[in-house]
């Protein structure tokens, strides 16, 4: 059973430049920030190291941080320009019974993060959901396509309505001939 400090120190020893920081002040869970393109290697180390052995990924969630600037685009609708998107990974070890939260941050404009699907298979559908609802692309994912929205959502919508969980999402006018706002 290790505390977040010990886990952070172990990780920092192994990957000094990929593992960025440990945030213990904000309530409630301590969060370790990792470089987005190195998350797969860090994940593999976390799973295979016998002292850590994080063999279960509890949850993977994409978050739109909404810390960009609000600008008005060509048609006068308010969109968010700049800012970041993050992905939170909650890991847990069945053997040692400890938990940790990882976080990666990437830019909002064309978000790309390395996929951890070949480390924990449960990430497969979670990453598909993050791609579907937020637009985050996961590199090296075997089957990255929409999971909850209809498969032809892209054909009927413009850029601003493609990914529903973004903070500047706007409902499309028509979908397959049906009027959407009522």
């Amino acid at each position, binding site marked *: 059973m290790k505390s977040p400090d010990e886990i952070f120190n172990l990780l920092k020893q192994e990957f000094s430049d990929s593992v960025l920081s440990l945030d213990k002040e904000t309530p409630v869970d301590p969060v370790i920030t990792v470089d987005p393109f190195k998350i797969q290697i860090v994940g593999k180390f976390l799973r295979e190291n016998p002292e850590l052995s994080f063999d279960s990924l*509890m949850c993977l969630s994409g978050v739109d941080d909404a810390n960009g600037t609000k600008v008005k685009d060509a048609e006068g609708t308010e969109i968010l320009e700049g800012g970041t998107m993050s992905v939170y990974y909650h890991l847990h070890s069945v053997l040692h019974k400890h938990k940790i939260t990882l976080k990666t941050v990437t830019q909002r404009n064309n978000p790309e993060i390395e996929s951890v699907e070949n480390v*924990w*298979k449960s990430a497969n559908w979670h990453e598909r959901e993050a791609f579907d609802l937020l637009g985050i692309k996961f590199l090296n994912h075997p089957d990255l396509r929409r999971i909850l929205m209809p498969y032809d959502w892209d054909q009927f919508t413009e850029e601003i309505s493609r990914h529903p969980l973004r903070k500047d999402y706007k409902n499309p006018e028509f979908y397959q001939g049906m009027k959407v706002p009522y």
Partner: protein
Amino acid sequence: MALKTEHMVLNMGPQHPSTHGVLRLELEIEGELVKKVTPHLGYLHRCFEKHAEAMQYNQVVPYTDRLDYLAAIGNNFGYALAVEKLMGIQVPERVEYIRVIMAELQRIASHLVAIGSNGADIGALTPFLYLFRDREHILSIIEETCGARMLYNYIWIGGLSHDIHPDFVRKTKEFCNYFKPTIVELDNLLSYNKIFIERTANIGVLPVDTAINYGASGPTLRGSGINFDLRREDPYSIYDRFDFEIPVGRGLMGTVGDCWDRYYVRIREMEQSLRIIEQAIDNIPEGDVQSAIPKRIKPPKGTVYTRVENPRGELGYFIISDGSVNPFRVKVRAPSFVNLEILGELCKGYLVADVIAILGSIDIVLGEVDR
């Protein structure tokens, strides 16, 4: 010149008597052998996470009911625990006891539906009706407490919506006495029936490593032989005060981790829930159930991830708060969503009829798969 052959694609479409909701399974079959199963989701997507960002914290509670509508109290419980942890609220003892009793009653009710539909898919139509008759007793107890039979909005942040009614203790004890012989009857009728064992033993074997890697939880994981229950590993509320066992699949009728083991785990879990209820029902302390409910729920800026043991597995709530009265992000880690991924792995090489048996043993509810 050889004939071009391809596998037949059979669509067990969104409307089907035994896919437990609107789930579309695309099967590639060769005669009766299944080569590949692809689930297609999204038919029940109701944008829970987007709605949660537009409402205040206590207004989200009725929406959490509708995620896993067969085990609604567990959903409320998880959300309330998450927000209470973020805000640092301590609820009175009476509230804790009543929450545990209601959660265990809900667990029995949900397992009754799961076992009944598992049997009905396989062809045993009579136990389904017997189990629903028993479920009526639980639903009427809960209806007298909070007014609703299925979607309760009962466990609020910081307390409960209604206090228990004066007859609650007596009726729950009567139910416990009534239910014990019913489990014996169910065992005689279905569990050790030779035809049922033929249909479920050695079908859909899930090895432990695959289960943990895929993130399985609940009876799906415990059926593979590993003793992992959140009420013991990561105790929340007052579960550490009660004495109960964790049933684990042992491969009594076939291999460890087959459909029969998962079914068996659910039956024994109902017995253990009865044990917890009997230990808790006599010791409910006095108090006011609404004393700790804050007037204005405005958590500090931060993140929290809480998980509870729902009848279907580990239900997790990940809440990010930015200091205002609306949550910034609520992510629900639904157990059925994660367990459904395993279906593709489990069905390789079995017959079409087995796909139904395996799907019934994983026990999904489309409300939380799609949210």
